[in-house]
């Protein structure tokens, strides 16, 4: 079946934060909208809506993606994890290093940081800064974010 431009609804089954669900959506719907408006999971934020800022970062099959660039039908059968899956206490290092001010970028930053915590081997080839570069922040100037992620990883300063 192709995805028709007319607004016939389609059913998309996927796993959200460990629970299997099925959503009925319009073919043009983005995963970001499905999460926020269909499922009332408003922790995931919209910033630019164009893949630049990372505010909408979720994990899809274990990898960070921008949910504003994922058509919901492509989540069919996928494992999606959102900020709602993150335990409260685990973001403490980000608070204590000034990684968050207005907080608009924070859910995306936390999703990338949590992914990095589970994929430490990537630090053999990448710096924390490069791995966090897809999460823009207008307020903090990044040092707080990088320091926060590094302290969560139990590392010293970048480079």
């Amino acid at each position, binding site marked *: 079946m*192709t*995805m028709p431009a007319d607004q016939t609804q389609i059913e998309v089954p996927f796993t959200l934060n460990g629970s299997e669900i099925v959503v009925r959506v319009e073919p043009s719907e983005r995963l970001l909208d499905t999460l926020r408006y269909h499922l009332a999971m408003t922790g995931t934020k919209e910033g630019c809506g164009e*893949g630049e800022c990372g505010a909408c970062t979720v994990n899809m099959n274990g*990898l960070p*993606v921008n949910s504003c*660039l*994922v*058509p919901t039908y492509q989540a*069919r059968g996928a494992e999606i994890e959102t900020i709602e899956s993150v335990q409260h206490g685990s973001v403490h290092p980000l608070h204590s290093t000034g990684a968050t001010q207005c907080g608009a970028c924070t859910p995306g930053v936390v999703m990338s940081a949590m992914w990095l915590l589970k994929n430490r081997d990537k630090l053999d080839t990448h710096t924390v800064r490069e791995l966090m*570069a897809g999460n823009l922040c207008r307020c903090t100037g990044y040092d707080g974010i990088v320091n926060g992620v590094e302290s969560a990883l139990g590392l010293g300063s970048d480079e």
Partner: protein
Amino acid sequence: MPTSVSEAVSMLDTSRGKALPIAGGTDLLAYWPERLDARDKTYLDLSGVDELCGHTWTDDELIMRARTTFWEIVCDQRATAEMRLLVEAARTVGAIQIQTRGTWGGNIVNASPAADGVLALMALDATLELTGVEGTEEVQLDEFYLGYKQMKRREDQLLTRIRIPRRAYTFQSFTKIGTRKAQAITKVGLAIAKSDSGWRIAANSMAPTVKRCPDLERMLEDETPIRNPTDFLPAIRADVSPIDDIRSTAAYREHVMARVLFHELAPLCPWVGAKSKSE
């Protein structure tokens, strides 16, 4: 939703240009939902076509199926060891959230003059396989683009595979001069490779398409002495045709390209640099 290449290709054929394949969606959805023409299109979702996934190494080639993501290549240690250009290019595409979704096939068919994946692939002599209802054709990537967003691909054809010869490289370099390190749209991009098959130079953002630079390649083959970056300018002007745009001027781009070439090649080539004997 198609689950095989043959199914997808026959859907493309019957749609007569109305259906647009969608792979990672990072180009197609980037201006969503304002881009009105995209709304009138029917998307043909390739995410169920497993035949288009993954990459393999044979004795003499790296074969990437069209949906191979940038991130997949970033994580392949063999790619880092043998075809560093691919990994370096992939690491500059947006940031990790784009690399995990963006595909090499999408980068090629989107046909941006600034495409970074295309730049690396062109310097590594990649060959494309295009599959349509009538079968599969091969096209050399450096002959694929005909003009701005024009290419040798019919609407019923899918890009299915990208094949890259495995060669013994003595030099590979990827340079992207942009405004910011991450998420930058290239102003000048350059890929240089040297193997037993000779020099390859490709440039992006310097012409309506990503382009190979045969005059520059010949200068290097001939070991033409180069004392200053400006000695590259005549060949650059023969090979590429940058335009003035909001991001920079044509003359600026030519000079940047000349300086990058000089900087990259001087440590390697005795005939490039102030000490070269051009008189």
